[in-house]
């Protein structure tokens, strides 16, 4: 029994060592939010580290005191009848350990308010090249993006590097939550509300989009990417979107249909599409996509006819004829 406190100490050391090893292994290793790639994410991280410093100090203080007291004042075989000094309190101490946390919390609050404008306010449009307005629609279970020139993409948002991107987020069905960990915090996407957030990606690359609010059966795969590309690539991306619909059709199938019907139409939550005769009737198919049927949500409620036609063509061309079913729809 007397050795227990030491076991606790050893455990604590072990946990710390493991934690440090983890941190050394991979960047922040989960001990801080992912490396920020946008000014708002950077400022959030500053606030995180400040809070970490204070809470870390308090954590060490309390846990050390606990371990020290446990070792120092353990019974050592004294009988239960032996009492400690009957100390009932100490007003000055009580005031001190009420006041100090107040001061610390005030400091944290002050710092957060100091950083807040840089996190929540979309920078003014006078930054280099103005800002890019993107409309984001969160659906069960995909993200649809509308670019300033009216073109669309599904689950993949392509934006130029070092430009302020202002997102206007809406949902036609249930609550979702927009989150790109490296590019800033979450904003919920709630039906009946229009929310806003922004980022300015400082590095080319691909950043994961996650839906952070339980939105139904396929919440776990409501994922996407922000592709941050040089300005010239962005322009050519938009040009390509205008010229042909093949990419949009593929994205739409993979982002919208495949999550329930399988990547080759082999079926999953939804019925098998490969070889299905229902795919031949364009009108009926369009109606199903627009209005939903049975358990299928009205996924295409907000699509324009270009996107709708493109995906129907894709379904007929690539899915109806596909052998399907052979491979699992990873």
């Amino acid at each position, binding site marked *: *029994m007397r050795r*227990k406190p030491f*076991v606790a100490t050893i455990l604590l050391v072990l946990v710390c060592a493991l934690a440090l090893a*983890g941190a050394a292994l*991979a960047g*922040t290793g*989960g001990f801080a*939010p*992912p490396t920020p790639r946008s000014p708002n*994410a950077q400022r959030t991280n500053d*606030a*995180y580290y400040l*809070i970490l410093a204070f*809470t870390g100090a*308090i*954590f060490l203080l*309390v*846990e050390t005191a606990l371990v020290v007291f*446990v070792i120092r*004042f*353990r*019974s050592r075989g004294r009988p*239960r009848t*032996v*009492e*400690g000094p*009957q*100390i*009932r*309190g*100490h007003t000055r101490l*009580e005031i001190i350990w009420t006041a100090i946390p107040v001061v610390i*919390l005030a400091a944290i609050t002050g710092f*957060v308010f100091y*950083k807040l404008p840089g996190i929540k306010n979309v920078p003014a449009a006078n930054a280099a090249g103005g800002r890019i307005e993107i409309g984001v629609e969160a659906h*069960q279970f995909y993200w649809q993006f509308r670019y300033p020139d009216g073109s669309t993409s599904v689950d993949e948002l392509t934006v130029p590097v070092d430009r302020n991107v202002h997102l206007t987020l809406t949902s*036609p*069905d*249930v*609550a979702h939550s927009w*989150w790109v*960990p490296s590019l800033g*915090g*979450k*904003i*919920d996407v*709630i*039906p*009946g*509300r229009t*929310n806003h957030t922004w980022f300015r990606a400082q590095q080319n690359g691909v950043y994961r989009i996650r*839906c952070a*609010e*339980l*939105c*139904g*059966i396929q919440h*776990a*795969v409501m994922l996407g990417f922000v592709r941050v590309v040089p300005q010239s690539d962005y322009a050519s991306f938009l040009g390509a979107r205008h010229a042909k619909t093949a990419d949009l059709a593929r994205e739409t199938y993979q982002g919208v249909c495949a999550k329930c019907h399988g990547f080759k139409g082999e079926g999953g939550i939804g019925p098998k599409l490969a070889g299905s005769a229902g795919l031949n009737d364009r009108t009926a198919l369009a109606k199903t996509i627009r209005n939903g049927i049975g*358990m299928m949500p009205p996924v295409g409620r907000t699509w324009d006819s270009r996107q709708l036609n493109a995906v129907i063509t894709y379904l007929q061309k690539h899915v109806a004829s596909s052998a399907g079913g052979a491979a699992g729809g990873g």
Partner: protein
Amino acid sequence: MAVKGLSGEWPRWMTRGTGREARKQGAPISRHTGATEDAASRRVTPVRRPGSLSGQALDGEAYPAQPQWTRGRVAGWLTTVDHKRIGILYILTSLGFFAAGGIIALLMRSQLATPNEHFLTKDSYNGALTIHGTTMVFLVVVPILAGFGNFLVPLMIGARDMAFPRLNALSYWLFLFGGVILYASFFAKHGPARCGWTCYAPLSEIAYSPGHGVDLWILSLHLLTLASLAGAINFLVTIHNLRARGMGWMRLPLFVWTIEIYALLLVLVLPALSAGLTLLLLDRQTGTHFFVPQHGGSAVLWQHVFWFFGHPEVYIMVLPAMGIVSEIIPVFARKPIFGYKAVAFSTVAIAFLSMLVWAHHMFAVGLPWGLNAFFMVSSMAIAVPTGVKIFNWLATTWRGNLIFDPPMLFALGFIALFTMGGLSGIFLAAFPVDWQVTDTYYVVAHLHYVLFGGSMFAIFAGLYYWWPKMFGRLLDGRLGKAHFWLMFVGFNMTFLPQHMLGLMGMERRIYTYREHGLWEWYNLVSSIGSGIMAVGMLVFLANVVVTSRRGVRAGNDPWLADTLEWYTTSPPPAGNFDSLPYITSARPLRDLRRRLQDANAL
């Protein structure tokens, strides 16, 4: 109907042997309520068979008998209105639900142990997380604390029973049926509710959650809120009216203080949940649109209503746990609690503030920043009284004679883990940081540090501490220590890595993930930890089984404790006490021991 008590001294039936003799005759268990401080206002309230009570009638054979059929072993428990039996029923039932919720958790951890797992996916997983959360909150922590309150409050304040024993029994049965209905929903059309324990609208609306899972979830919660509400009123009336002579508010055991506040919070916030549930039910069944934005309703309204209840609910689950810790630490440190008033009043402060912080669960909703700022400051403020409690417990151990029996181990474990949970809460209170960590595994880790490392560890401390009082036998100390260390190590293995997972980007309530590397490792460690905790719970179960027949018999007061429940036998007789001393401090039993010592010395 009330009968005027005998004036002046204790009534005869209280000072003469009523306890065991009465029980042998199968007498109704709760007949009377105890005396209050003021003799003139003392009332003796007959609870069963009104009219048959008088000082004489209660002596010997003339005592009214229970109907024959209620005397059987099983029937006795089914028809009981005794607060101790109801308390034990509450606790055992909650432990049963704890096992069920725990098994569901193990299934979920198995699914998440490795990436792209196919063990429990999609709707099954979403159903599991919903039932796990609802079970642990509504069927485990709240009712088990009600069980402790039921068993202990009358004993601690020197009453013979709760103020309304039959209402008390009603609470228990409503709770049991509420739980049964929740689990019956596994057999409903389309399975159980799958919208998380928060069941955010519009996902919980009929269009997105067809079938009867959500309807049964609502019915279950309706029953549970009724159970809690009736129980809360009962606690308030009992604590306000049935305290022993001399037991003023500053001599009230700290656990009773927390039950008082627990009950008060329940009365204040449960109606909000009931109203919200009713509106959701109307939406689903009668075509109203309270939470359907497409038809003019508001999805955010549900979140406000739910969290207006939901955040105080956290303190409903934590405050009595803190009360348990405040009882145990002084006894096993052989010292009085450091700063009784500070601990008692910080409970009140936490409860007050807890009603003002609900929207910190909604920082990402996009509320006006002024509102976010208000809820940030109020949430930060709640850390102050919480810190006061932790510092006072630490100060209580200072220079004590610390005895590491299982109750003390779990109580110290509570301090260690709850501190962690409290501090990670400060990140969540700062709303820009919350935007990063909310709805991720960071929150999952935080809430488990508060509710599992916090409440459940305190509950285990309480089980080891009061088990001898409930059943007359001590739980085995060595098995108890094994249980503690398995739980402590398993708990930290399970939930510490979840902080990192959340910060790395693992969102809540996902049934699968594709990432490898650290994600995989943290998840695997977490799943292994949950298995270690499961082993710990098996050790606890073994302890209960082994000691049920062969355990060391506890005397009245095996721990040399401070409060009145240790004044009577273990287990206490019907009616609890033959007589009671006048209460002169918050530690009446220590006073008695000292008086005895002085008498012997003479």
